[in-house]
């Protein structure tokens, strides 16, 4: 098999014991095969430098560690763990290549320049080899995540497929973490670029439906909308919810999750979602991703059923890309909004994906503050975009 993947999961509350438990399971499955890469996802309350120390002590080889923390992690058993971690040990055949890199101090460098820096570092290792796709993990509190992705695309190629997610937390500490080799980092991003003899498939969906009249962004800059239909942007929410700005702010978390703004994309099945971060005094709306001027937008509404159905569609899209070939490993980047909306049914969403991609297919993931994945319609030339409230699935195989 060109890619061998062994997974381990633990719900132990002690970071070191949790790491050892998960590594024991994974190592037992992998046997004596060499380990090329270790992917680690932990729940945000378990984040601790000792996890990385434990991994490096346990795996005697010089293994690269790459991962993120999220409000919950997705285990191979189809569980969503609020306290826990999942470890994937990957062993690649000789004709599969990958390169990893990270960039720190994104705020100081500006997201756009930091994105370019990461792109440069990632392409550096791939001088004479064709790059197939990239995996991006980034801090959940980057101010303009779209700008970062655009910077990265400028260096890796505008249509280069990039899949990934932003680390998340319980919205209280306002700090998210990434794992990169020996370090726990924030205000950073790390990437993996793959090439060689391997297949991949990507699916992204959200399931939110448009509601009400189509409107137009008449004034915006990056991730801020100033005016919609020549009126203060907040008016759209004021009208729909019959609330003033102060009342809206109190309900911001709920509105952000349940009723995001959808940007109409010509030729795409779904609108591109943007969730609301803040409403300022002047009535400007601040989002997590970019909101280009002249875009047609609508208010969106989501239900649990449409969410789970979207996850199924995303998994089917992945499967279609694989044309019946074996999938060796599945990575899931699932939005925190979906986790909050689905609550007790969150595991049903994961099991729906497992149902489509095969119960025995190794799967790992975490809940994200934003996802990256390509848009597939011809109008967007497969360019990767920053998404909100979506589930992005990446499958790789030999």
């Amino acid at each position: 098999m060109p890619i061998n993947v062994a997974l381990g999961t633990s719900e132990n509350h002690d970071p070191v014991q949790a790491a050892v438990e998960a590594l024991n399971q994974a190592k037992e499955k992998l046997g004596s095969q060499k380990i090329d890469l270790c992917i680690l996802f932990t729940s945000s309350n378990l984040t601790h430098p000792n996890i990385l120390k434990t991994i490096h002590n346990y795996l005697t080889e010089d293994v690269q560690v790459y991962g993120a923390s999220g409000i919950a992690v997705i285990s191979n058993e189809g569980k969503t763990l609020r306290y826990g971690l999942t470890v994937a040990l990957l062993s690649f055949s000789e004709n599969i290549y990958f390169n990893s890199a990270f960039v720190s101090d994104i705020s100081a460098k500006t997201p756009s320049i930091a994105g370019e820096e990461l792109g440069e570092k990632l392409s550096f290792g791939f001088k004479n080899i064709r790059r197939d796709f990239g995996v991006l993990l980034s801090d959940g509190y980057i101010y303009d995540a779209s700008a970062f992705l655009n910077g990265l695309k400028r260096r890796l190629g505008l249509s280069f497929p990039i899949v990934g997610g932003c680390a998340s937390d319980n919205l209280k500490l306002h700090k998210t973490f990434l794992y990169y080799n020996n370090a726990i980092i924030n205000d950073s991003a790390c990437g993996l670029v793959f090439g060689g003899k391997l297949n991949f498939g990507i699916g992204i969906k959200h399931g939110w439906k448009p509601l009400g009249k189509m409107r137009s962004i008449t004034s915006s800059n990056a991730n801020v909308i100033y005016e919609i239909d020549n009126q203060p942007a907040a008016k759209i929410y004021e009208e729909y919810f019959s609330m003033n700005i102060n009342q809206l702010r109190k309900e911001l978390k709920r509105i952000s999750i349940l009723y995001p703004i959808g940007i109409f994309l010509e030729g795409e099945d779904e609108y591109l979602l943007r969730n609301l971060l803040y409403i300022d005094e002047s009535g400007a709306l601040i989002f997590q991703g970019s909101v280009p001027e002249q875009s047609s937008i609508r208010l969106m509404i989501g239900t649990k059923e449409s969410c789970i159905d979207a996850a199924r569609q995303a998994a089917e899209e992945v499967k279609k890309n694989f044309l019946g070939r074996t999938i060796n490993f599945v990575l899931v980047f699932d939005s925190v909004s979906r986790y909050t909306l689905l609550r007790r049914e969150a595991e049903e969403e994961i099991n729906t994906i497992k149902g489509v991609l095969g119960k025995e297919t190794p799967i790992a993931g975490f809940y994200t503050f934003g996802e990256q994945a390509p848009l597939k319609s011809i109008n967007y030339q497969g360019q990767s975009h920053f998404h909100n409230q979506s589930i992005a699935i990446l499958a790789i195989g030999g």
Partner: protein
Amino acid sequence: MQIVAIICFVGIVVISIVLVYKLDKIKEQGSSIDKLKKSLDEMDEQAKLIVRTDMELNKAQEELDKKIRGLFTLQGLSRSMMTSLEENQIFRMITPEHIHELGFEKVVAFLWNSAQKRFDIHVRTGYPEEEINDIKKYIEENKDDYLELMKKATTISSITRSKELSLENRITSVFKATFFIMSPILPKEGDGGFLFVGTDDTETPINEGDEELITILANQLAQALENARLFDKTWKAQQSLEEKVAERTSELTSALKELQLVSKRKNDFISSVSHELRTPLTSIKGYAAILLAGKLGEMPAEIRQRLEKINKHSDELAHMVNELLDIARIESGRQIMKKENLDIKEVAEKVADMLGVQAKEKNISLSVNIPNNTFVLADRQQIERVFINLVGNALKFTPEKGKVAISSQPANEAVQVDITDSGCGIPENALDAIFEEFYRVDNAVNEGVKGTGLGLSLVKHVVEAHEGKIWVKSKLGSGSTFSFTLPKAG
């Protein structure tokens, strides 16, 4: 020219007609657009209604989810708390996960320690060391207030508007929680305390439902504490009882060992003394017999009279020595019982026959009432001794014209033999001691009749060596019944 003018005119007319028609069309389309616009606006209004209703539904759903989650957590927590029988373990059951599921991030449980006269913190979550120290200090400084509050047995929270509002404000600042619930833990016995939970999450403020849930949890805690304390008490009582039993057992064991040793020494002593006594006794008896036989010449009547006494007393002494030796042998297990199928009726009749003369002398009616074929597993010779002793005693203590009856009855796997007399009876205080060695009942008969005081002891030893039991029922002046059991023949 005219033709051209006509054509122009017709053209203008046609164009005018077309224009009028087009204008109508435009007007029509404009009205359609207006209708469409109106529909869109109406749809947008409907969308607003949908969104608002959806938001209300979601809020209700969230509330419901929160309640279900809370109840589910409470149920799990209660179940695990109720199975804990150790006080500290009960508090360890409350994990940050449980608190989170109940919708809080902070928890402190503190119990009054009446021995130390202070409140002790048993659970804390969500507080760094310095904050918990502040809380400890605050509780210590206000312990009297909290003891008073405990007596009131009411839950206070950031949503209650009680008279102790100042207290609630202080709790908010000391325990550093925007929203809080503090419920008393009141076990029926022993010290109580408080369960505090708090959150800073302003988006999901607490409500009466949360207050109810935390009050239930505090009550469950109290119940679990009660159980643990009761268990502790019972366990300690049992431990001390077990210790006492062990102590007494050990005392009894050593006393028994001592007794066994004494008994063995006594038997050894009796055995050796008896053996030593038998040799000179035989000589004395032998010489007395020779003298009495006149082989050494005739002797005066007075000497003969004394010699006969020597002979008689020697016989009695020899009898006593033999009985002592028998008892010692049986006790030490050296005497082997030659068990056989024995017709107990036959033995009884033989003994009755043997002692018939004695009965006749006193005009006593001696009867045997044992059914035919009553077989026991016993040593014939030894059982004969039992009968001789018991019937002999009965005849001895029964006055003239009295009655002595030997009867039997089945008793489970044994046969019970009863020897009943109409004699003087045995005083109640002597009943227990009657089977002891050298014990003689203090009565008129015994004063006049000689005895070794070993007969009944020997009988007891013989019966017990057959795994039987012996006992007596008697009433002073109304006769006695000696009963013993022997195993039924297989």
